[in-house]
């Protein structure tokens, strides 16, 4: 099995033979000298050159994504099959959909359709878990549509606004 693993700004080419006993791994073409155990479905233990690591794996937000957590850190990993055509996420050029980072209730809008937004400017206030949180625009642009009304309850990932 060959995979490209993108994690924290680095990309590694991983070759794994999980059918052999013990499993054999290569990293960027070099033997990884790794004793790799799958302790349970979501826990992997690794001994690499004497160093010991235990990783807890969780599904990520998108297909092909995993969260990797352990005592020394947490990171999201994107796993792709190099045999397949790589599809770069593109989206509609220039248009960005502002989504709800979590379930909550829209308290009020801080900008109106047509307003010019600076990068990082607060667009609306969302209330959840007893806290009022400002949702900010990740880029400069024009607020072209408000997709949820004040007072409305929204699900995580729901589209809140469009920014051009």
């Amino acid at each position: 099995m060959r995979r490209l693993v993108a994690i924290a700004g680095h990309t590694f080419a991983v070759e794994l033979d999980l059918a052999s006993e013990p499993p054999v791994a290569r990293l960027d073409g070099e033997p990884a000298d790794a004793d790799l155990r799958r302790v349970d479905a979501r826990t992997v233990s690794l001994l690499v050159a004497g160093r010991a690591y235990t990783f807890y794996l969780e599904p990520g937000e998108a297909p092909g994504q995993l969260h990797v957590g352990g005592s020394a850190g947490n990171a999201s990993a994107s796993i792709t099959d190099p045999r397949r055509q790589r599809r770069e996420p593109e989206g509609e050029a220039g248009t960005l959909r502002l989504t709800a980072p979590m379930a909550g209730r829209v308290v009020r809008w801080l900008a109106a359709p047509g307003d010019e937004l600076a990068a990082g400017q607060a667009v609306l206030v969302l209330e959840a878990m007893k806290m009022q949180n400002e949702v900010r625009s990740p880029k400069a642009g024009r607020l072209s549509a408000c997709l949820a009304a004040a007072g409305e309850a929204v699900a995580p990932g729901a589209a809140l606004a469009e920014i051009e």
Partner: protein
Amino acid sequence: MFRKILIANRGEIALRLARACRDLGIAPVAVFSEADREALHVLRATEAVGIGPAPPRESYLNVERVIAAARQTGAEALHPGYGFLSENPALPAACAAAGIVFIGPPAAAMERLGSKTAARALARSCGVPVVPGTVNGLKSADEARARAAEFGYPVMLKAAAGGGGKGMRLVHRAEDLGPALELAAAEALSAFGDGAVYLEKAVLRPRHVEIQVLADQHGNCIHLGERECSVQRRHQKVIEESPALRLPAGLRERMGAAAVAVCQAAGYVNAGTVEFLLDAENRFYFLEVNTRLQVEHPVTELVTGLDLVQRQIAVAAGEPLDLRQEDVTWRGHAIECRLYAEDPEQNFFPSPGRITRLVTPAGPGLREDSGIYEGWNVPLEYDPLLSKLIAWGEDRAQALARMRRALAEYHIGGIRSNLPLFRRILDDPEFAAGDVDTSYLARLLATAPPALDGNWLRAAALAAAAGAGGNGANGSAASAGGPPASAWRRAAWREEILG
């Protein structure tokens, strides 16, 4: 002593209170909203009563339903915990009317101290210094601007009714005061049912140091020393410690005496906390009194060896305090981290949802007061506090080392938590040196987080590929294969309950 106590709260504090009851041989009664039927405080209960739908106003904030639950179960006393109804004088009043003992201060003392403006006046009358500010809630943005001009910027807006950082805003310029007042008032109304907001001159780079007080019904009032709560984010405490850092000799005693004086002047009974600001010259200013048990009470318990909740219950039952001031001794150092369901990488947005993996730390010097379990769905209706991790050590260095180790062992999967934030703080040399004031955390968060170790990344990449191997749509095998142990599958449990 009581035979049965109703615990009018949820989450970690409901469990902590139930444990104190059990330790005293008293039966605790849990209450729950419809969103909490499978919450840990219900699963661990021996008696539990539903008190209504998920929205707090229809359950945990509903005095009638809480009192009805106490009557229905024959509870002789009621503990409100913190938050919810704990600082609402309507609750002790309703308890009195129903013949139920309220485990907390009398309604009158709660009212006297509950309004921050009234409390400040009382402190002033006891000769305890306060920060210059308005005595009453602000009527308008214009009034706010006028008073702020008088004290000089920066100023601090604060909710008259509450605590916990809700309804607080630091304002540097006159033009920001109007919008900030609106936000603060809205938050205060939503959190405490009272939108009144007042204004204080801001003390810059102050430390937040508070004194734990314990008073009985017989006129005895003592303090249990101080807590340092200077690590805050948006005026919410994040880390608490006891003793406070770099406290000059005699200051604990002077602040303790001031706190006791204020509580005695208010006719205070039960456990309470007097909050102070400490400026760079170690001058202290009275801030407010929290007329309830604090979230951070465990750090005081660990250094004094005393169980505060057990003493709250004893005091409410009319027993005289079994301690004089000179009996209180302090040993070592304690530190608490408040684990929240919030994502430090996404501006600390709340992160409710299913906890799919929970690995908790253990070993010497650790205590965990938790309200969660693996598999539980953290509801979005309530405060995001998941658990409190507390470490004790012979000295601060040992306490910090143990906390660091505990944070390394801890793992919460499925939702985001502020665990990475705590790892970062505990690894920060400035924090380890004790060079901390209330602006510390904002300064830390303005810097880039340290990069992940290269060996860790390479190993994580291998683990991720192995984890994906058996599961991706294009995976080469149905499972990761490997040694016999990995053949054991949680997946098999469901089918295998009957052998």
